[in-house]
């Protein structure tokens, strides 16, 4: 596996792990053909904020980097939860960053053209709630002028906003890019449409992925607000009632949809807050497959994939990443994982799910079509 150290669009690879553990490689251009008519792709259309603000802690004069990390009220820029580092920048590994000065409520911060006050400390030296001075308009202008995208040491060149914005980016509510969506382009959306695959979006305020501090990382992800449009809720209900599959573009979509379905297993339109982690034993009700970036074992993104596939399949996927030089992190390649069946395979009707030429291997309908294209010998 190679760390993707700069933004790159368009090309790239997709490793597909099917529900029965079958593993295949595709170019990203084939994303358009990996799903069946009647399936629904759901993506997160949150635009990424330039959430890193450098400045000064006035009581001590210390240099700080404030990383906006959570909304008090989604979309209202007057107050935030923030993670704060001491002097230094993203080129230093997060784990090695200096701590900020000690904060007290009422401390004033100067962040470029913005000024803010520490409202409270949140049980960790690096975690505060802050409020900016001024009107929402002037705060947006200040963030736009002074903020930089949050970035990490594996990418040394400064990122531009366009690097962290997906092509479908709408409301600026994400603190870090909903990076699985970076692999989407308008051509892919058009191909899905002509192939009968639906496309819908929700808006989920993706939070920060790492603080470099083990105690604080334990608290990630923070509660993340989301908003599900009526059209999306309707499309999901229609897809499920017709037996289609819901494909989530990224972990944030899984979080939002599964949080929205906790009550009665249905997706209701409206605003909500995703709390807690998706664990391997979390029951997934809505999402049938996830497209994710390539992450290493141990990273929270990788751990979430355990909800979809068993350890054996993920170990094999990880080995394939190494073998085929997959590029990791947010600007790297992709992995598509179908949710493993919850029931023993014997309970499935084998007539519906096997191809004779595959010698008894159980594969799902998607892969029947893909296989038939790749290997004419199995065509009926």
């Amino acid at each position: 596996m190679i760390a993707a150290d700069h933004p790159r669009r368009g090309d790239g690879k997709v490793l597909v792990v099917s529900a029965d553990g079958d593993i295949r490689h595709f170019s990203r251009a084939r994303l358009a053909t990996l799903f069946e008519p009647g399936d629904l792709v759901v993506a997160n259309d949150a635009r990424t904020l330039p959430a890193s603000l450098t400045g000064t802690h006035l009581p001590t004069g210390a240099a700080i980097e404030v990383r906006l990390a959570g909304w008090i009220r989604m979309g209202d820029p007057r107050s935030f939860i923030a993670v704060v580092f001491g002097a230094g920048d993203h080129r230093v590994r997060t784990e090695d960053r200096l701590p900020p000065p000690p904060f007290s409520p009422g401390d004033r911060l100067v962040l470029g053209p913005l000024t803010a006050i520490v409202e409270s400390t949140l049980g960790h030296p690096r975690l505060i709630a802050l409020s900016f001075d001024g009107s929402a308009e002037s705060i947006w202008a200040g963030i736009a002028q002074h903020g930089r995208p949050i970035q990490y040491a594996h990418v040394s060149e400064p990122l531009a906003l366009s690097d962290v914005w997906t092509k479908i980016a709408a409301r600026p509510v994400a603190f870090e890019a909903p990076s699985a969506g970076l692999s989407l382009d308008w051509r892919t959306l058009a191909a899905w449409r002509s192939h009968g695959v639906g496309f819908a979006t929700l808006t989920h305020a993706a939070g920060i992925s790492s603080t470099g501090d083990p105690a604080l990382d334990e608290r990630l992800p923070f509660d993340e607000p989301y908003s599900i449009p009526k059209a999306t809720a309707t499309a999901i209900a229609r897809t499920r009632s017709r037996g289609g599959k819901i494909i989530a573009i990224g972990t944030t979509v899984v979080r939002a949809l599964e949080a929205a379905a906790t009550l009665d297993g249905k997706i209701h339109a409206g605003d909500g807050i995703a709390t807690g982690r998706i664990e391997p034993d979390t029951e997934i009700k809505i999402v049938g497959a996830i497209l994710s970036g390539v992450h290493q074992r141990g990273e929270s993104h990788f751990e979430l994939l355990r909800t979809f596939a068993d350890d054996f399949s993920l170990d094999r996927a990880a080995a394939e990443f190494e073998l085929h030089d997959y590029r990791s992190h947010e600007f790297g390649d992709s992995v598509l994982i179908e949710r493993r069946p919850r029931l023993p395979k014997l309970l499935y009707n084998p007539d519906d799910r096997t191809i004779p030429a595959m010698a008894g291997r159980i594969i799902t309908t998607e892969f029947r079509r893909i296989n038939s294209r790749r290997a004419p010998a199995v065509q009926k």
Partner: protein
Amino acid sequence: MPSNPNFDGLRVLVTGGTSGLGLALVQALTARGANVAFVARTASSVERTARTTGAHGIVGDVGRKEDIDRIALQASGMLAGVDILINNASSLGFVPLSLLADTQNEAMEKALTVNVLGPFRLTKALLGDLASSARELRGAVVVNISSDAAINAYPTWGAYGASKAALKHMTAIWAEEMAAEGVRFLSFDPGDMDTPLHALAVPDADPATLKRPETAAAELIDVIAAALPKRVRTPVEAFG
């Protein structure tokens, strides 16, 4: 016959919003209940227009590529998304207007940068908002302000005319490509108006013979209303 369409809750961004047609649009759209943000280059003018109209002001230059993402971020942040984008900001190149043979390269560059590249970049930066708006059946309309100089070959209007012709054609291609996403693209020729831009181009024109920008704004608003999904025109049905 002009109607009085209701734009309640629609989120609109107007470029060049502190004078001429842009100002008239900001005034008329806010009066009709839209949530409006506008862009202009001069901070004091932006502040004045924001104060007098209640719209959200953004200081920026659509002719500067480094300003585009910042403008998109502020607009989408302040309005919580964008339903309608009106690319109204426009440049003549240099004045006085001159024959193409006498036109400085930089004047042609300026006209193309402000009138073609600016709308292209800003539309791209906000396309996600517009497509989301379309999926939610709220609206999703992009208006690019055109001119009869885009079609007719008027001597001395070379830089402006060529840029407006390019914009008009780009608008038509956008419209073809984004129709399936539900985003509508319109060219609108407001006619010869009594505006600062027209005064720069034709200093000795008699203002009495020119259209008032308020009239053109009302006409454009009717055109936009006709392009919106029917539901949006009756907010109770769409959002109730």
